C-alpha cells in the first residue's frame, strides 16, 4: 500500500470502511510521521499516542462487529490546543494553563469522536489564539514545512503545518480574525471559517466570543467539507449557535469539483487588490480569478468602502472581549499559580500569576481591551468599533445583492521569515487585513491554495453570505479542480 500519510481523509475513510486498511495502521503511520518530523516542524504541543491508538482500535473493533463506525471513521485528526479535550492537556499555547487537563470535551471534539475520527493530539498556536505566526506560543514557534525558517501563519500554525507536513490529513482550527485561513494560505492548505454560530464554541477557550469560530482544516476542499459536515450544526450548549442544519457543504464541494461555475457571479474586493498586497500574491490571485472565469464564473469588481476600518475596529472589539474572557485565569481554580507562599495577599498572588503566566501579546491586548471598556472611554472605543462593525456588515449585505460571493487574496504576503514581524505588532496585525472583515460580519470564508509566489504558497479567499457556506465550497472546489493542490518539498 502507498504511504498512508499521503492520502486524503476521503480516501482513508473509504479504505477503512472497506476493510482495506485498519484505523490502527492509519493511526500508527501518522504517529510514525509525527515522530519523524515534528521535532523540526513542532506542529504538536501534545501527542496522545495511547488515546489515538485506543480510539483506532475501537473503530476497528466496531467495524469488525459490523457496527456503524461513523462517516470519517479511522481518519486521524489534529486538534488546535484551544479546544478542551477531556483528560488530555489543553494549554491554549499559554504557560498559564500548563498541565491543565480539562474535565470535559468540547462539542467539536465530542462530534469528532462520534464520527469515528482518531484524535492524534493538540496543535501549537499563538497564545490564546492571538497572533498570525505561532511565534507567540509560550512553547516555541511552529515552522512552515515549505521552509522551516519561515512562519506557518497563526494563530493556528500548528494545525496548518501538521497538514502540510503530512502529520495529519485533517485538523481543527479556530478563526477569530483569520487564524484558520491565513495559516492555510501560507502553508498551501485549505482552511474554512464557517458562519459564526454554525460550529459550536462550547469548549473553545474564548479569545473574543463574538468572533471566535472553530472550523475545518484539510489538504483538499472535499476533506474540509467532510470535516465541516461532521463538526457543524446546532449545539444547545452554545447560545450563539444557529438552530439550523449545516448547509450541504459536501454536496457543494463535489459539485464544484466538476469544474463548472456557470451562472456564478463573483466580486473581487477592490480594496484588497491594490497596494496592500505583495505583487506575487496579487499575480497568483488574478490568474486564479481568470481561471474561475474560464470555468464559467462572471467576475466583477465590488467596492466595500468600510473594509479599511475593519482592522482598527477588530483591534478594539477583540481585545475588549479578551480582557474580560481572560479574567478567569487568576490561579485560583486551575492552571498556574505563582507566589502563593502563605504571606502574600490574594491580589498579589493573582497579579504574580497573571504576570508570569501571560506572554507579551496577550498582556498587550488585555491592556488595550481594559482601556477600551473603561468608563469614559467606552463610547469612543468599544462603542465606535461596534458601529464600524455594523457598517462592515452593511458592505457585505450590499455586495451580496450584486454577487454570490466575494473573492480576494487571503493574506497580503506569503510566509515571512521567523522573527521578521515580532518587533512591530502592527506589521504582524497586517497579516489579517483581508480576513478580519468576515469575522466582524459573521459570514463564512475559505482559503484555498491558488499558486506559488517565490516558491511559497498563496491563498485565495472566498467569502459568502451567512449560512451560505456551501457556496464558498463550490467555488473553492472548482478552483482546486483547475489549479490543483500544492506539495511542499520533502522534509
Amino acid at each position, binding site marked *: 500500500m502507498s504511504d498512508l500519510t499521503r492520502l486524503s481523509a476521503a480516501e482513508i475513510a473509504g479504505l477503512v470502511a472497506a476493510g482495506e486498511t485498519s484505523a490502527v495502521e492509519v493511526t500508527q503511520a501518522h504517529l510514525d510521521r509525527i515522530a519523524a518530523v515534528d521535532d523540526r516542524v513542532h506542529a504538536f504541543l501534545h501527542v496522545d499516542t495511547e488515546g489515538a491508538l485506543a480510539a483506532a482500535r475501537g473503530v476497528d473493533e466496531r467495524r469488525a462487529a459490523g457496527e456503524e463506525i461513523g462517516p470519517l471513521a479511522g481518519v486521524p485528526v489534529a486538534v488546535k490546543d484551544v*479546544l478542551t479535550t477531556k483528560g488530555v492537556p489543553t494549554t491554549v499555547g499559554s504557560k498559564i494553563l500548563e498541565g491543565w487537563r480539562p474535565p470535559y470535551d468540547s462539542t467539536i471534539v465530542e462530534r469528532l469522536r462520534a464520527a469515528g475520527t482518531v484524535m492524534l493530539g493538540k496543535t501549537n498556536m499563538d497564545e490564546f489564539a492571538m497572533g498570525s505566526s505561532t511565534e507567540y506560543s509560550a512553547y516555541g514557534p511552529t515552522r512552515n514545512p515549505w521552509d522551516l525558517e519561515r512562519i506557518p501563519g497563526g494563530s493556528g500554525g500548528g494545525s496548518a503545518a501538521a497538514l502540510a507536513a503530512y502529520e495529519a490529513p485533517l485538523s481543527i482550527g479556530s478563526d477569530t480574525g483569520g487564524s484558520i485561513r491565513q495559516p492555510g494560505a501560507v502553508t498551501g492548505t485549505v482552511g474554512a471559517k464557517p458562519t459564526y454560530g454554525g460550529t459550536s464554541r462550547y469548549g473553545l477557550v474564548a479569545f473574543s466570543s463574538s468572533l471566535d469560530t472553530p472550523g475545518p482544516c484539510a489538504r483538499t476542499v472535499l476533506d474540509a467539507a467532510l470535516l465541516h459536515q461532521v463538526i457543524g450544526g446546532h449545539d444547545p450548549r452554545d447560545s*450563539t449557535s444557529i438552530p439550523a442544519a449545516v448547509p450541504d457543504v459536501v454536496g457543494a464541494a463535489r459539485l464544484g469539483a466538476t469544474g463548472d461555475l456557470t451562472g456564478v457571479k463573483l466580486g473581487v474586493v477592490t480594496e484588497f487588490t491594490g497596494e496592500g498586497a505583495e505583487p506575487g500574491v496579487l499575480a497568483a490571485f488574478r490568474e486564479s480569478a481568470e481561471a474561475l472565469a474560464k470555468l464559467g464564473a462572471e467576475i466583477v469588481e465590488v467596492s466595500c468602502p468600510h473594509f479599511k476600518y475593519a482592522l482598527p475596529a477588530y483591534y478594539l472589539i477583540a481585545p475588549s472581549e479578551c480582557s*474580560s474572557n481572560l*479574567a*478567569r485565569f487568576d490561579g485560583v481554580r486551575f492552571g498556574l499559580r505563582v507566589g502563593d507562599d502563605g504571606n502574600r495577599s490574594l491580589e498579589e498572588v493573582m497579579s504574580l500569576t497573571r504576570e508570569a503566566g501571560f506572554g507579551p501579546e496577550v498582556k498587550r491586548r488585555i491592556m488595550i481591551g*481594559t482601556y477600551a471598556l473603561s468608563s469614559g472611554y*467606552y463610547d469612543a472605543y468599544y462603542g465606535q468599533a461596534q458601529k464600524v462593525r455594523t457598517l462592515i456588515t452593511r458592505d457585505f449585505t450590499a455586495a451580496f445583492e450584486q454577487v454570490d460571493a466575494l473573492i480576494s487574496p487571503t493574506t497580503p504576503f506569503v510566509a515571512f521569515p521567523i522573527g521578521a514581524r515580532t518587533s512591530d505588532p502592527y506589521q504582524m496585525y497586517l497579516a489579517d487585513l483581508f480576513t478580519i472583515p468576515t469575522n466582524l460580519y459573521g459570514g463564512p470564508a475559505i482559503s484555498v491554495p491558488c499558486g506559488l509566489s517565490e516558491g511559497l504558497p498563496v491563498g485565495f479567499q472566498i467569502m459568502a453570505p451567512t449560512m451560505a457556506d456551501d457556496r464558498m465550497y463550490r467555488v473553492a472546489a472548482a478552483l482546486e479542480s483547475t489549479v490543483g493542490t500544492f506539495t511542499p518539498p520533502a522534509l
Partner: protein
Amino acid sequence: MTTTLPAYDEVVARYEPVIGLETHVELGTNTKMWCGCPTDFGGEPNTRVCPVCLGLPGSLPVANKAAIEATIRIGLALNCSIAEWCRFARKNYFYPDMPKNFQISQYDEPLCFDGYLDVEVNGELVRIGIERVHLEEDTGKTLHVGGATGRIHGATESLVDYNRAGIPLVEIVTKPIPGTGALAPEVARAYVTELRDVIRSLGVSDVRMEEGSLRCDVNTSLNKPGEEWGTRTETKNVNSLRSVERAVRSEMLRQASVLDAGGKITQETRHFHEDTGDTTPGRSKETATDYRYFPEPDLVPLAPDTAWVAELKAALPELPRLRRKRIQQEWGLSDLDMQSVVNAGAVELIEATVAAGTTPAAARKWWLGELSRRANETGVELADVGATPAQVAELQGLVDAGKLNDKLARAVLEGVVAGEGSPTEIMTNRGLEVVSDTGALTAAVDDAIAANPDVADKVRSGKIAAAGALVGAVMKTTRGQADAKTVRELILERLGAQG
C-alpha cells in the same frame, strides 16, 4: 467612634431623609441560571458544580428560561414595563468567589423597568417607585479561616464554595424615596415586607432572609428642608426585616451627627451589624472598581414575546395587599386583628385551614395561639412549626364533633407537632378521646356522689352551684377525658336536681 447620637425626633425635625432599596432575591428555580446544576440550599461544598458554573475555560452559559419567566412575573407584579429587547451584560471585577471574574448581569437594558409597589404604613398607602428589576447570577461563598474575625484580614486560608455560584438572582431597585420623614425606617421595612410577600405569592422564591435568599442593601441620605438631596451611603449586610428598619434609623442618626458637627457625608458602602445595630464603613465609592460593563457576547439578546408576557400578566395571582383586604373582610377582622395575623405570618396558613372546612375564628385561634407560641419557643417560622393547615382543620373537626375538648385538643396538637401522625390517629393511639360512654360516666358520677355526701346533699337541697365540685371530681377521675357539660347534666339527673 463614640460620639453621642442626637435624638431621633430632633433629627427628623431638622433633616429630611431620602431612602432607596436594592433587594436581591435568589430564585427558586430547579437549576442554576446558566447550567443544569441543582440549586437547593446546603449540600457539601463544591458538589453542585459543573464546568459552566465553575467558569472553566471554554464553558458557555445558556439562559434558564424559568428564571427569565420568574423575573418577568416579578416585574409585572411590581407594575413594571417589560423590555421588548434587552441584553445581559458583563460586570467585570476580580474576586475569587466569582468563577469567571465577571458577573453576568444586566446594565442599561434591564428586563423590567419603571414600576411601583404600594405599601401600607400606619394605615396610609405609600407608593414606592421601582426603577428596575433585572436578572443576574449569584456568586460563590468565600470562607476565611485561621483569622480571628472570619474576615479576609488575618486569615491564613480562604476557601471558596461554588455551590451558590450561578444561582439566578433578581435585583429589584427602587427609585429614591423622599418625603417619608420620621417614617423612613418603617417605610423601608414595610416595603421589604411587602416585596417579600409579593414574591412569595408568585411562588418564585422562598424569600428567606436568614438563608440569604432575600438580601437587602439600604441607601440613606439626609438633607435640610428645601435643600438638595444629600450624599447617600449604601448599607449592606442587612439580613432581617427588623434590621432594615434599624439600619435606616441608625444611619439617619449617624449622618445627622456628622452633619450637625459641620462634617460631610462620604459616599461609601457601610456594613450593618446585627448585634450593635450600628453601621461601619466598607470600601469607599471613590476608589470603587470600574466594572467595565459591556454586552455579554456569549448570550443572545432577550426578546420576550409580547403575547407570552400578556399571558403571564393575566395569570398573576392576587397580590398580597389586595388579598389581605379581601380576607380581612371575609373573616370580619378588625385592622388590629388583621395586623396580628399578618405579623405572625399566618395569613396563608389560616386561609388554607379555612379552606379545609374550619371557621376563620377557630383557625385563627389555633394559629395565633398554641402554634404561634410553639413557633416562638422553638424559634421557627410559623409555617415550619410542624402542623399543616389540613391537620389543624382535622383537629378542629374533632372538637366540633365533641370528640375532643379544648384541653385534649391541645394534647393532640402536641402530638401532631411531634410528628406522631394525624389528629385522629393521635387521639386514638394516645386514648385522648372524650369519654362519652354513659355507663362509665354514670359509674364515675356515682362514685363522686358517694365520696362527697355533703356536697350531694347541698345539690339535692337546690344549691345547684355546688355541683361544680362534683364535676371537678369526675373530671379528675376521668383524667379530663369527659365532656364537662355532659358530666354536669348527669350529676343533676342523679341527684334529682334541675339545672
